[in-house]
Structures are given as C-alpha cells and as structure tokens.
C-alpha cells in the first residue's frame, strides 16, 4: 500500500505547485481538484490497508464537497470574468488598494 500513498503524495505536491504557479483561475481550480483527488487516493488506500470502509466513505464525502466547491468556484470565476474580462488570479486585486 505504500506505493499508493507515495503516488498520492506526489500528485498532491504537483497540485500544490500548480496552485502556486499557474495564473489562470480555472487551471488553479483544476490543481485544487488534483489535490483533493490525491487525498481520496490515500483514503481509499488506507481503507484497504485497515480493512474497513470508513476511508471509502470519507473519499465519497470529499467528492461531494469537491462538487459543491467547483460549482461555487466556477460561478465566482464567471462573475469575475464578466466584470473584469479576465480569468487571471492576479487581476482580481481590488482589495489591495
């Protein structure tokens, strides 16, 4: 099972770097999804490791929360795009000033 958890860690790290480096809000969102998926993989791996299904249930809940999060996040991105004609995360800096 160790290899699954290592893969999960690698995917999580890649998602993390993606969130930090990418500028397009949609791609940033995809990287967040990648991190959530990496966590799910670890949950399912540990469920098998310990022989009970709580990990799978947790992964299921993570998927539900991720779906809700994507819906709201994409609606926010659309609203920002509508007012500022840009999907870049660096353009939405009005609160800075």
């Amino acid at each position: 099972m160790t290899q699954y958890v290592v893969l999960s860690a690698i995917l999580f790290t890649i998602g993390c770097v993606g969130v930090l480096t990418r500028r397009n809000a949609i791609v940033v969102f995809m990287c967040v999804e990648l991190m959530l998926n990496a966590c799910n993989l670890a949950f399912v791996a540990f469920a098998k490791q310990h022989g009970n299904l709580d990990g799978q249930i947790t992964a299921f809940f993570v998927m539900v929360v991720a779906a809700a999060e994507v819906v709201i996040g994409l609606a926010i991105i659309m609203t920002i795009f509508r007012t500022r004609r840009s999907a870049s995360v660096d353009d939405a800096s009005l609160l800075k000033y």
Partner: protein
Amino acid sequence: MTFWILAPLMVVCALGILFVRKAVHAALLLAVVMISLAFLYAVMDAPFLFAVQIIVYTGAILMLFLFVMMLIGVDASDSVVETIRGQRAMAIVLGLVFGAVLVIGISQVTLGTVVGLEEANAGGNVPAIANILFSKYVFAFEATSALLITAAVGAMVLAHRERLTPKPTQRSMAAQRMRDFADHGKPLGPLPSPGVYARHNAVDTPALLPDGTAAESSVSRVLAARGTVRSAPALADDIDDVRRQLAGLEGHSDPASMPETSGKAGSPANTEEDVK
C-alpha cells in the same frame, strides 16, 4: 500491475497540467488523471467509488470546467508574466522540498500487513457502504444535502444577472439602424455578401466595389482576424489566367481539364462553362 502502468501515466499527465499553456489541454490531462484514479479505486476493492469517480468527477465536474471554459473563452491562455518576482522559482523549490519530505517520510513508515477488504466487502461493496453511510455517518450525509442545496442556490445567485436595460425590440432596432444611417452613414440594408465571383463560392473572398476596391465589410471579421482573406487583385490575375487557358482550349469541352475547381475539391467548376 495496474498500478505500475497507471502511476507513471498519472504523474506525467499531472506534470503536464503544470506546463501546458492552454486551459483546455490542462482539462484533458486532468481527465486522464481522474480516469486512471478510477481504475486504481477499482483495483483497491472500491467499485462504488470507481463508478462515482467516473460519473461525478470525469462526467460532471470536468464537463463543468469545460463548460465554463467555453463561456469565458477557450483561447484565454495563461500569461507568463510574474506578478511577484521570483514567485515561480520559489514555488518550484517549495514544491520539491515538500514532495521530498512527504515521499521520504511516507517511505520510512511501515504500514504493516494489508488487512484487505474481503471481509468488509463480503456482502458486496455497495451494501456495505450503504450500511455505514446510513447509520454511522447519517448526520454527515444529511449535512451534505444542506451543503449541496446551498451550493446550487449560491451558483444561481452568482450566475444570475438582472437585466438593467429593457430588451431591444424589433421596432427599437429598426429605429437605431435609421439613427446610425442618419448620424454616421452606416448602410441601412444588410452588409454586402462575400464570394460574388462565379468561379469561387467561398466566403473568404471580398466583394468588389464599383471602383474595383475590395469591400472589407463583405468578409467575416473572424476570417479577417485569422488572415485567411483572399485578395481581390490576386483573384483578378487568376481570372485572367483562366481566360487565357480557355482561349487556348477553344473547342475542347472536357470539364475535368478546367484549371479551377469550385467548393468541393476535385469537382469540376461548373460555373466556368458559362464563361465560354
């Protein structure tokens, strides 16, 4: 075995998300990662999550991503300008360190023998999950319904837009058109149609004005932006060519020997037979 095939593929695709410029390509790479994850779930005795992963993630969430991408413009590629100086390098260093710490830490932990899900899945994976979900986690499940409703209402509120101006009617549009004609001399009728030459039925050829210049407004703006508009003078040379060849081939009526073709590739240009 499945793992050693899918794991490198997933890592490569995930890295691809970091490096591709277009958001659509990132979405497709993410789809590969998610479908591979679904197969890993299937390998790890989680057939329910396998189905949910494909239906919810690949089917719903990724389609939602693509949908929003189409709404806000597919060609909006990432800018490479750094807002904070050195941020990218610092992020990469941080990521490498973080990944190294995680991987080394995990590989030093011994997880012990794998218990396996044979016992827990004895009556089938889906009934077993349902048993736990509707007993031990029933409050979390109910809270999920509240979350989903909040998300749906929130998305509607965010995406909703009040109409601030009245909807334009046919009457007001006609009045606006007359006003434009009176003020700026914009044409009252429709724009001139492109491709008016008998030899060419494509929309990429501008119409010619009476003085011989090309009418820019007769070609779609999209074609003009792509730079695929054919120039009218060059076309006139073509016509001279055709004329000369027709003069040389006088009496020879085989349509296949005609130099120009219309619309479909290889089909004889029927319109040119009228020239003779």
